[in-house]
């Protein structure tokens, strides 16, 4: 009521406050709520993949048991731990930003990036092995052991496997991009206890990537 809402602001804002927000409280709440809505759309995006998994498994329960044996449980478990650890480091990075410690934010971001790259390296090793032996999606499937047994449609398990882990992997790659961006901004000393919602939102995104994996891992690797 007291401040001018028109074109010319009578009073100074901090540089990080956009002119259409009245104060930082409003801006931070809007940013965070916006991020949660973005996560909502992410969840429904993945819902399609989970539905594809559920229906194919429902049609071919036997196939699922046999085909999942071809995945490497140990590698999956190691990757789970890598991703959980990166989630912890990200949470600690957000905490550092809440306290306004830019140096620590950058350090925790670097640790998170290491985890993200580690995850991708392990995923790459798994993928190259699958591709090498012919455990491929759909019509490319060429793995004698499974086609000769009584399993109905082993190619569908690997379609689902590659689509789910592929879309998840794509999110990891995007995560690397935004975490890197946050790290650079932290090195520029952008963040303060009043202005850290960029770190917080990237953190939320990264935790969601983790959250999805928490379900992908048992569904794909631990079927039996």
């Amino acid at each position: 009521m007291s401040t001018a809402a028109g074109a010319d602001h009578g009073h100074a804002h901090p540089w990080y406050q956009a002119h259409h927000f009245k104060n930082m409280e409003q801006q931070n709440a809007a940013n965070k709520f916006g991020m949660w809505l973005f996560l909502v759309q992410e969840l429904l995006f993945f819902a399609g993949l989970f539905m594809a998994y559920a229906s194919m498994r429902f049609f071919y329960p036997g196939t699922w048991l046999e085909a999942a044996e071809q995945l490497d449980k140990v590698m999956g478990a190691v990757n789970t731990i890598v991703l959980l650890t990166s989630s912890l480091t990200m949470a600690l990075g957000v905490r550092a930003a809440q306290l306004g410690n830019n140096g620590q934010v950058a350090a925790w971001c670097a640790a998170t990036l290491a985890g993200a790259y580690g995850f991708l390296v392990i995923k790459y090793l798994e993928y190259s092995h699958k591709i090498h032996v012919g455990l491929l999606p759909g019509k490319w499937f060429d793995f004698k052991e499974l086609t000769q047994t009584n399993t109905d449609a082993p190619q569908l398990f690997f379609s689902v496997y590659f689509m789910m882990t592929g879309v998840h992997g794509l999110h990891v790659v995007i995560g690397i991009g935004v975490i890197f961006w946050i790290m650079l901004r932290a090195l520029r000393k952008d963040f303060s206890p009043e202005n850290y919602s960029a770190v917080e939102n990237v953190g939320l995104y990264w935790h969601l990537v983790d959250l999805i994996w928490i379900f992908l891992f048992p569904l794909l690797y631990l079927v039996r």
Partner: protein
Amino acid sequence: MSSSHAIGHDHEHAGGHITPLPVYFAVYGALLVLTVVTVAVSYMGLPPLQSITVAMLVAMVKATLVGAWFMHLKYDAKFNVFTFLAALWFMASFFVFTFYDLASRGMVNEVTGQHVLHKDMDEQKK
């Protein structure tokens, strides 16, 4: 009405709620333990239904831990929690109604319930 703005309801001072470090480490520890548990259960040779039930229960506990502490939902504005739960609700409606169709296809008329595999069709032709 005083609620001219939705802001200011979060009781947030600058920096928001700061979770103590030991809490983060405790949550992380619990996540690791649960990962070990779920892998161990998969080696026990449970029937598929029991196996996936246990695996999903463990995953849900892990997801709750990540959501409540790492994603700060425990201290967050309640509406953000509601938003998240609403997404799960609509996901569930997608799963339940689609699955109801898949599962009930043979219930009234056996023929409509047959899931015909292409390779079986090929064999029938021969």
